[in-house]
């Protein structure tokens, strides 16, 4: 087996299954009645947590590649990003279908009146074009430069997700602050890298 084959047929499927584990765990807890007294809230929060986590994991791919020099990490970026999107869609679906049970008037009122929901909605809207343009064909059609420009939306989306979390908390903001810290490091890395690139304009990176 060539390294390429191993990546394709073993490592990637493994990572794929790994990314499904939170969902499997949620399903297991739901089936065994382990979601506590308020399973709908638990489901919604669990999915929101994992949407945010996958978004942050996706954002570690580029720094990990640069810092280790292992280009192989880049091969997982799309999959991780799509999982972030999938968990975000499931999170919003659980809000619409479980929490509100398709009470569209209430949902609309929430979106316009509750700032944290507005921010969540904006975050989702930013993720949709990213997921939609994730295929090779779309990259070709858009052209690398425009595709890259578009995909910078992932930064405000990640900020939106953390702000959304921070704003929904009643008093103990420790957890969203941890995510904010991680995000700050990931974005800070990019700022510093861009600044260095600016200082040495010859070096070109993705």
């Amino acid at each position, binding site marked *: 087996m060539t390294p390429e084959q191993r990546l394709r047929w073993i490592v990637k499927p493994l990572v794929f299954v790994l990314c499904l584990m939170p969902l499997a765990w949620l399903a297991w807890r739901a089936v065994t009645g382990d979601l*506590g*007294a*308020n399973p*709908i*809230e638990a489901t919604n929060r669990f999915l929101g947590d994992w949407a945010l986590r996958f978004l942050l994991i996706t954002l570690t791919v580029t720094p990990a590649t640069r810092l280790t020099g292992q280009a192989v990490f880049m091969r997982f970026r799309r999959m991780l990003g799509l999982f972030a999107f999938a968990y975000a869609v499931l999170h919003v679906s659980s809000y619409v279908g*479980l929490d*509100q*049970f398709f*009470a569209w008037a*209430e949902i609309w*009122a*929430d979106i316009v*009146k*509750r*700032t*944290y929901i507005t921010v969540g909605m904006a975050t989702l809207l930013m993720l949709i074009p990213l997921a939609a343009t994730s295929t090779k064909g779309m990259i070709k059609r858009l052209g690398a430069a425009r595709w890259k420009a578009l995909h910078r939306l992932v930064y405000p989306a990640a900020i939106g997700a953390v702000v959304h979390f921070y*704003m*929904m908390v*009643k*008093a*103990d903001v*420790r957890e969203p602050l941890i995510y904010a810290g991680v995000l700050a490091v990931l974005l800070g890395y990019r700022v510093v890298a861009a600044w260095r690139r600016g200082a040495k304009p010859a070096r070109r990176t993705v």
Partner: protein
Amino acid sequence: MLIRHTRPSDVKPSEITPRAVFADRRRFLATAAVAGATAVLSPLLAGPAVAGRKLDGITKSPFSTDEELTDYKSVTTYNNFYEFGAGKDDPVENSADFEPRPWTVAVEGEVAKPGVYDLDDLIRPHALEERIYRMRCVEAWSMVIPWVGVPLGDVIKRLEPTSKARFVAFDTLYDPKRMPGQQRAILDWPYREGLRMDEAMHPLTILAVGLYGEELPNQNGAPIRLVVPWKYGFKGIKSIVRISFQEAMPPTSWNIATPHEYGFYANVNPNVDHPRWSQARERRIGEFFKRETLMFNGYGEEVAHLYTGMDLAKFY
């Protein structure tokens, strides 16, 4: 308070052990265990250490609802009690070692009989009643809980507040060692709550010392907490150590934390939203569909008159 052991071998059901005697015996047992008789005594120690001591002589109340009870497990595992952590399952996990005895309550302020009362002396003169109440949390979920307690009004009458007493203030225990959630300043500890005198005297308002016929589990506010069924759950201050009668409206914890979100009155009101979510509907724990939230949590007939002429959108 009167207590009875659940294990039949321990005490005959008819025999009633005053709490002080019981506590002494427990201390003795603990000492003995340390002395080396662990094997023999540990089952005895394990018995009293868990919640579930039955309360005796509970009478029924016409104020109880006949709605389906929220199951015991949900009532005792899904709690907001930030003194033991901000997650819903934190209180049950982090309060396991909390020892709610001995317990005293300081009575202060505009009152003829101030002093530091042993919990038993505060509660025992009154008959324990079962009060099955709806409990509506400000977070838009609700339960039906069979509390055991005494009317706060009866206790207050015995303490004889002066004519100057217009409000009653309550404090939760402040002891970060025993209440680990207090080690971080999520709220301005100690937790504080208060009622207007007429709210405190209202027959629906109780001091609860139990639920489901048993002593209050730690995570539900052992050994004594307030229950005001027409108000949001956060008014039901837990593990009370101070009751103070005063002329001025007392500051309250959530109002201090976020004044535009939580007011002093905190009456359940489907028409006045929390800035971050709607209060029009609620999820009854155990149910899938949300239900309409009722004005004053369905206790309007009994309490609406307390607020006539008040703009409840302003005094939320």
